[in-house]
């Protein structure tokens, strides 16, 4: 497993969220979120379903709009300014629960599309980068197939490679293994661990507590739209402070 000491965390702030609130109509989904992510940090967010953890990370690249407070990503504040939003999005990679690969394009085209059209990288160069990352997620031989021909685990690794092709400074993972068969979870987690070891700033919404213990430097527990507890993994798992956290941990670690 990963050697946490190797993974450097710098003082530079990657993401700064202050006093953020969000509502869906009358429903208050995110309540007074305050959170600072340093560059190089690996953060795992967990919590019961409906606790707002996915919504929180979707706010970081503005797939969801927040109504109050401030989110600053890499020095750029997220407002209604479309230019800023596109800038942040091209610096922040996102991996989804259901992969969301583009089914009408081959794997290689999936990987080169954004670099070519957003980063304006020449096609040849984009393909080289794509092959490099496909090699890294260990499926270079699938480059010319379509997403529908791959297994779930392979698709999710392609999705990770697709994000990496944009050379992002931050990666967001939204329950990346929840839609996978148990035996495919490992191959995806291995890819994510490898990424963490290379010093990528990562925020993962996941229920894989083994992954949290192995690579996270901080675990955040959310309930009812609020951050209930956050701590380094060892403390978090062995000595949870709040009753809600204890209950949650007993439920997911109990079996």
């Amino acid at each position, binding site marked *: 497993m990963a050697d946490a000491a190797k993974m450097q965390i710098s003082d530079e702030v990657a993401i700064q969220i202050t006093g953020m609130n969000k509502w869906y109509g009358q429903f208050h989904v995110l309540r007074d979120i305050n959170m600072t992510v340093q560059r190089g940090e690996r953060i795992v967010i967990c919590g019961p379903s409906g606790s707002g953890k996915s919504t929180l990370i979707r706010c970081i690249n503005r797939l969801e709009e927040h109504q109050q407070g401030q989110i600053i990503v890499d020095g750029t504040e997220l407002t209604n300014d479309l230019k800023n939003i596109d800038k942040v999005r091209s610096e922040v990679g996102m991996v*989804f629960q259901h992969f969301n690969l583009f089914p009408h394009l081959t794997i290689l085209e999936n990987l080169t599309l954004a670099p070519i059209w957003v980063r304006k990288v020449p096609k040849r160069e984009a393909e080289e980068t794509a092959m490099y990352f496909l090699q890294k997620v260990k499926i270079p031989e699938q480059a010319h197939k379509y997403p529908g021909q791959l297994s779930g685990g392979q698709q999710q690794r392609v999705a990770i490679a697709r994000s990496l092709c944009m050379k992002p400074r931050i990666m967001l993972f939204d329950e990346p293994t929840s839609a996978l068969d148990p035996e495919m979870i490992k191959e995806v987690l291995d890819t994510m661990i490898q990424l963490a070891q290379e010093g990528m700033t990562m925020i993962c919404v996941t229920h894989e507590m083994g992954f949290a213990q192995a690579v996270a430097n901080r675990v955040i527990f959310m309930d009812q739209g609020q951050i209930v507890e956050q701590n380094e993994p060892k403390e978090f798992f062995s000595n949870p402070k709040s009753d809600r956290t204890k209950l949650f941990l007993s439920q997911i670690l109990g079996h």
Partner: protein
Amino acid sequence: MSETHAQTVGFTRNDMLPPLPPPVTERGAIKWLRENLFSTPLNIALTLFGIAVIYLLLQSALPWWLNSVWNAESLSQCREIVAANAGPDASGACWAMIRERWHQFLFGFYPPEEWWRPVLAFGLLFAALAPVLYSGQKRSLTILLCGVLAYLVLTLYLAGASGVVFALALLLVLGMLGLAQVQPGKLLWFTLLYPALTFWLLWGGSIWSPIVAMAGFAVLYGVFRLASPLIGLAPAAGAGVVAAVLWWLYIDVPVVEMLQSALPFSIPAIASDQFGGFLLAIVIGVTGISFSLPIGILLALGRQSDMLIVKWLSVGFIEFIRGVPLITLLFTASLLLQYFLPPGTNFDIILRVIILVTLFAAAYLAEVIRGGLAALPSGQYEAADALGLDYWRAQRLIILPQALKISIPAIVSTFIGLFKDTTLVAFVGLMDPLKGVTQIVRADIDWKGIYWEPYIFVGAIFFLICFGMSRYSMYLERKLKTDHR
């Protein structure tokens, strides 16, 4: 039989059984008949009933087809020939009418010495469609272009085109064939020029009018490029459109006259009321189809837009057009449109009809495409957004290719409907093949009383064209099937 060790409980097979053919009732035609035609008492009854119906139809219609007459000068002569050949009570088809009047079904009153122009335009239509229909597929492209070449050689010869036209047309198609081998993508330039070329070929007049009209698009693009760094994309596009409209309204005609007096070159002008038959149907149909798709896409996107005014305009337009019969719009085209236009402008009737048919089809297409857009999982939008693609790129690269693919069957249905609806232009006095031309033929003293033949002929041609579109859409669906579900 093999030894089965009947005295013991255990069982061991000593020699393996060879495979045997299935019984007769489970094989070939008999099996097929049993399963498909005679599987239940109800099916047996239906099969027998079906056979009886087919027999009755053939019994009454077959003699009519078999007694067909191809050589005659009038319907009464046809009937005499049928009576002489098959007895006084026999009936027979009189295809001699088609033999004599085929050109009116195809060209209307287009002057015979100019037939080479629509013939050429029709051949080049496929050359222009080739790069769109078979993008990047060299083999299909080459086959289609060779077909166009063969068609042009034959029909231009039959239409008596002059040597210069013959040489130019063949050179053009040969050049495209060559280009298809090296850079098939470049063929799209011809597709862009084709509308102007065809407009000039069909209506004739000075060669400068299509060129100067196309220059309007260059003006649009130039203004857009110059203005976009100064005032932003959307206002620049608006300014470009305004500039182009001004160009067409005020500068177009004087420039054409000037160029024509300096460098005169023209072919005889043909007025719109001489157009007719399938020439008219295809002109309206093809123009309507090619312009309604982009407008339909924009309307579908507009309907989903976050911008309230854009959304309401799109919804209002779609609902209005869909709520009104096409005939109403055509009457508007022929009568009312004149009142709304600046005095002095005389809009061509075919052009007016084309505009309204296009808008009509666009409203239907917008709803069809909206269905395709709605069928896409929201994850596709999110993934495109998360990669930093802006709205138009996300639409063009991710959303529309998938949404259009889902909607292909419905889009082609709309196209087929549009093409068949072109016959409705008969109601505003244009000579469509079904009503207009047939009426003219039936009004002729020689062919008075002919009934089935013209409709069968026109119907058969419509069927061929629509069936072709339908087959192409199925091919396209197969080609684009990448989801492997």
